């Protein structure tokens, strides 16, 4: 696999949506190519940042209580 193919498939690879064979080929390429490896690492860190900043919400306890009260009424 060359760099262009690797870069084009990178998101699909990081999303674990690539077929086994293509995924292994891309993985091999990342082991061999420093540039693509660093790009992959960047995308992964950015994803972690997104997850951390947008996904760490906790439902307020009042909401939990309100929902279970409501559920008992219906």
């Amino acid at each position, binding site marked *: 696999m060359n760099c262009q193919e690797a*870069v*084009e*498939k*990178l*998101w*699909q690879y990081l*999303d*674990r*949506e690539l077929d086994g064979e293509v995924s292994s080929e891309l993985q091999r390429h990342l082991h061999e190519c420093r540039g693509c490896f*660093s*790009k992959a690492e*960047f*995308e992964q*860190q*950015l*994803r972690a*940042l*997104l*997850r*951390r*900043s*947008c*996904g*760490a*919400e*906790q*439902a*307020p306890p009042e*909401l*939990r209580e*309100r*929902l*279970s009260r*409501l*559920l*008992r009424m*219906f």
Partner: protein
Amino acid sequence: METVTALRNGSQDAAGARAEEARTRFAALVGEHLDGLYGTAVRLTRNRTTAEDLVQEAMLRGWRSFHTFQPGTNFRAWMYRILMNAHFDRHRKDTRTPEVVQDEVSDSYLYTKARESAALSDAGNPETVVLDRIMDAEVRESLEALPLPFRTALLLVDVEGFSYKEAAEILGIPVGTVMSRLYRGRHALQKKLWEFAKDRHYVRGDRG
């Protein structure tokens, strides 16, 4: 007569017990996923009070149709679909999106921009520097600024970790459309993050 009444009471009790059991099961399932549902609702509505209303509406809708839920299938995806539909029903006009045909390929916009930036290079490894300096609030603002179809794709796949297929089922659209929205959304998000970076003192040299 007495026997009939007794039988009827008996079956009523049984029905009541079944309903109670379903209610307990539903409450436990919703409880398990409530943080994620609430968090998603916050990013969808951009407002905590509205988010609570949306979650409440979704829960009631879910409970009303819980009898159609197949035990053993993906409750989380099922409930997210209800949440999304409740939100879309409130915002019919925002759900339209120009479906530009685009190849589903990654493009690493932010990485490329960071590497090209002389100011970032002066501060160290440019891609590490840019990530270290982006603030959580800026990421939230950038995500919330995305058009709804892109925002939902990113929320489901990137934040909540659903597969393309699950996201497609939740949104009721083909997998290819999920990918297209996801990739365009990521590109738009990275562009917005770069705007923040550019407006900051540390990449002043790259303005324009």
